[in-house]
C-alpha cells in the first residue's frame, strides 16, 4: 500500500521528483517517531504505525465533537494523541524497562494489535474520509514546470520540515531536549545527575506519537483512512534504520533514500514492488552498514 501519489502530469521527471519528496516527507515524519523512542530508551516501537492510525481516527471523533471548527478539531486530535503516547508509556512500557529486547518489542507488537482491534471495533474497517468529516477540501494545484501536488501533501511536506526544525531546536537548545539526549547516552549517569528518566521516556513516547499522529492525520486528509494504514508505518521503519536508529537527521536522509528507491522502482520496474522496496533497502543497509548512515557503531553491541 502506497499513499496516493499524482500519476498523470505534463512533466514526468519533475512529477517523479515531487512524488519522491512527498513520499519521503511521509516516511521522514513517521520515521522520526521510531528514532525518538529508540534514541532515548532503546526500545523499538513496532506499534508506531497503529499509534499513527489512532491519531488519524481521533480526528473523526473530534470532528463530530467540534462540528464546523476544523482547526479546533485538528488541534484536539493532536493533543489527544500526545496524551495517548504518554499514557502508553506510563501504563505499559514503563513495566518493560530493562526487560529482554524481544519482550519489549513484542509488547509494542501486542499493543499494536490491541489498538488495531479497538479501532475496528469503534470505527469499523471501512474506508473513512476525515476531510469530509472536517468539511475541508483537498485541491490539487500545479507547481512550476507542470508537476502537480495536492494541498494536504504540500502541507505534509511543510509539516515535516517544521517538525524536523523544531526537533533540532528542541534537542540542542531546549532543557528537556538535553535531558533526553543525556538519558539516551547514559541512562545511569543521567539518573544520577537528577534527570527524571521516567519523565524523559514518557516525553519521548508523547512526542513520537505526536509526530506519528501528524503524519497519519495529514495522510488521511489527503487520501482517506482505512485500518491498513499501519502498513505505511511499518514501511517507514527502514527509513529510520537506513539513517541510523539513533540519529534524527539520519531519519530524514534515510526517508529520502527509501522513498526515492520506492518511487523509481514502482515506475520503472513493477508496481507490485511497492510493499517490498523499503525492506530490500533495509536488507541492503544491514549487509553493508548495519548501524546506518549516521548512526553510531556501538549501537550494534548495545542491543
Amino acid at each position: 500500500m502506497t499513499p496516493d501519489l499524482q500519476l498523470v502530469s505534463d512533466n514526468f521527471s519533475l512529477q517523479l521528483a515531487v512524488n519522491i519528496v512527498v513520499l519521503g516527507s511521509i516516511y521522514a515524519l513517521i520515521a522520526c517517531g521510531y528514532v525518538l523512542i529508540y534514541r532515548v530508551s532503546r526500545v523499538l516501537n513496532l506499534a508506531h504505525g497503529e499509534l499513527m492510525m489512532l491519531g488519524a481516527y481521533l480526528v473523526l471523533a473530534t470532528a463530530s465533537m467540534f462540528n464546523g471548527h476544523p482547526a479546533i478539531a485538528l488541534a484536539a486530535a493532536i493533543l489527544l494523541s500526545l496524551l495517548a503516547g504518554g499514557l502508553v508509556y506510563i501504563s505499559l512500557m514503563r513495566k518493560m524497562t530493562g526487560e529482554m529486547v524481544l519482550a519489549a518489542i513484542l509488547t509494542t507488537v501486542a499493543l499494536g494489535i490491541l489498538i488495531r482491534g479497538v479501532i475496528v471495533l469503534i470505527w469499523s474497517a471501512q474506508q473513512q474520509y476525515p476531510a469530509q468529516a472536517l468539511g475541508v477540501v483537498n485541491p490539487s494545484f500545479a507547481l512550476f514546470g507542470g508537476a502537480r501536488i495536492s494541498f494536504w501533501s504540500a502541507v505534509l511536506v511543510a509539516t515535516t520540515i517544521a517538525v524536523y526544525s523544531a526537533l533540532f531546536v528542541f534537542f540542542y537548545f531546549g532543557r528537556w531536549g538535553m535531558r533526553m539526549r543525556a538519558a539516551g547516552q547514559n541512562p545511569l549517569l543521567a539518573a544520577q545527575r537528577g534527570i527524571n528518566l521516567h519523565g524523559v521516556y514518557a516525553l519521548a513516547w508523547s512526542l513520537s506519537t505526536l509526530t506519528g499522529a501528524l503524519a497519519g492525520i495529514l495522510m488521511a486528509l489527503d487520501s482517506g483512512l482505512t485500518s491498513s494504514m499501519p502498513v505505511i508505518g511499518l514501511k517507514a521503519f527502514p527509513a529510520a534504520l537506513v539513517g541510523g536508529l539513533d540519529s534524527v537527521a539520519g531519519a530524514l536522509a534515510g526517508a529520502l533514500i527509501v522513498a526515492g528507491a520506492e518511487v523509481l522502482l514502482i515506475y520503472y520496474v513493477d508496481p507490485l514492488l511497492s510493499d517490498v522496496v523499503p525492506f530490500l533497502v533495509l536488507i541492503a543497509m544491514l549487509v553493508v552498514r548495519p548501524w546506518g548512515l549516521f548512526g553510531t557503531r556501538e549501537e550494534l553491541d548495545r542491543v
Partner: protein
Amino acid sequence: MFRPPPRASGYLSTGYAEDLALLRTRTERVSLAVFLILLTSFPFLASTFALDLACQVFLASIGALSLMLLTGYAGQISLGHAGLIAAGAFTTGILAREISAPFWLTLPVSALTGIVLGFIFGLPSLRLRGLYLAVSTLALHFIVIYLGGEYETKRGFSTGIVVDPPSFAGVKLTDGRAWYFVLLVAAAVSLLICINLLRSRSGRAWRALHGRETVAEAFGISIARYKLLAFVISSSMTSVAGCLFAYYRGFVSIEAFDLFLSIQYVAMIIIGGMGSLLGALLGAVFVIVFPYLIEAFLRLLPNVQKLAGDIFAVNYAAFGVVMILFLILEPLGLVGIWRRIQNYFLLWPFKYKPLAGARK
C-alpha cells in the same frame, strides 16, 4: 543437558542405556500410554469442528516447536516465521500446479526450500543481534511474501492456488480422521526431532551461544556454524509444516501468511513459555483455540447480532490484551504456571520453594 522434571525422590541410572532413555519411570510410561490412547480415540469421539481444530493445533505445533528451537534455545529472534510457512506452502502449491507433482516430491522439495531460506534468513545473524536481527527477519518475511504474490499475479491465480489432496497408493487423503493421524504423526516426529537435537551436541551448543557467544566460542563451538544450523533446521521444519498446511487446506493464498501469522507464532512461544518444548505445544494449543473461545464467549452475551460483524476485531483486541498480560505478568508463560502447580503438589504439605537444583 537433558534433565527430567523434578521428582519427589531421587532417581539413579545404573547404565548408559537407562540414562539415555526418554521415558525413565513407570509413571512416565503409563501417562504417555494414557495420553496416546486419548489422542487415538479423540477423532472417533469428536465432532468435525473439533477435529479440524486439532489438525490446526498439530500444524501450529510443528511451527511453534521449530521457532522454539531457534528463539527459545538458540536465542536467535525471528519475526519472519510466517514467511517460511508461506515458502513451504507456495513451493507445494507451485509444484502441484505447474508439474502436478505428487506428495512424495513436494514434501522434500519444500524442506529443501526451507533449508535454502533458513540459510539466507540466518546469514544476517552472523553479524547482527537482538533487535537488528529481528528486523532483518521481518524484512525477509516481506520479501518472501512479495515473491509469492508476484507468482500469483503473473500466473493469473490472483485469488490463490488450489492444491489437490495428496494420494497414498491411489487413495486420496480427504477424510478428516485420516488427516488427523497424518498431522499427529508429523507433529510427534517433529517433537522427537526437537527433543533429540536438544539433548545432543547441537542442543548444548545452541544453549551455550544463547547464554553468551564469547564464552561459547572459547569452548570451541563454531558460532557461525551453529547459528546457521539452528536457522536451517528450524526453517526446514517450518517449511514442511507449510507444505502440510497447503495440502490440508487445499488452497494457498498469500493473504493467509501476513505479519499477524508471524506474530501469532512468536506469541505461541511467549505464551507457552520460552525455552521449553512443552511450552511450544501449550502455546500452539492456546493461540489456536483462543479465538474460538472468544467467539463462544461472545455467543453467550446478549446482543449477539450486533457483535457478530465485529468478531474479528474483538479477537484481535483480545489477543493483544492476552499477549500483553502474559508478557508483563507471566513471562515464563503457561509452562511457568504448570511448573508452579507441579511444585505445589511436589512439596505439599510444605510451601518451600523448590531446591536450587530443581528446574525452575
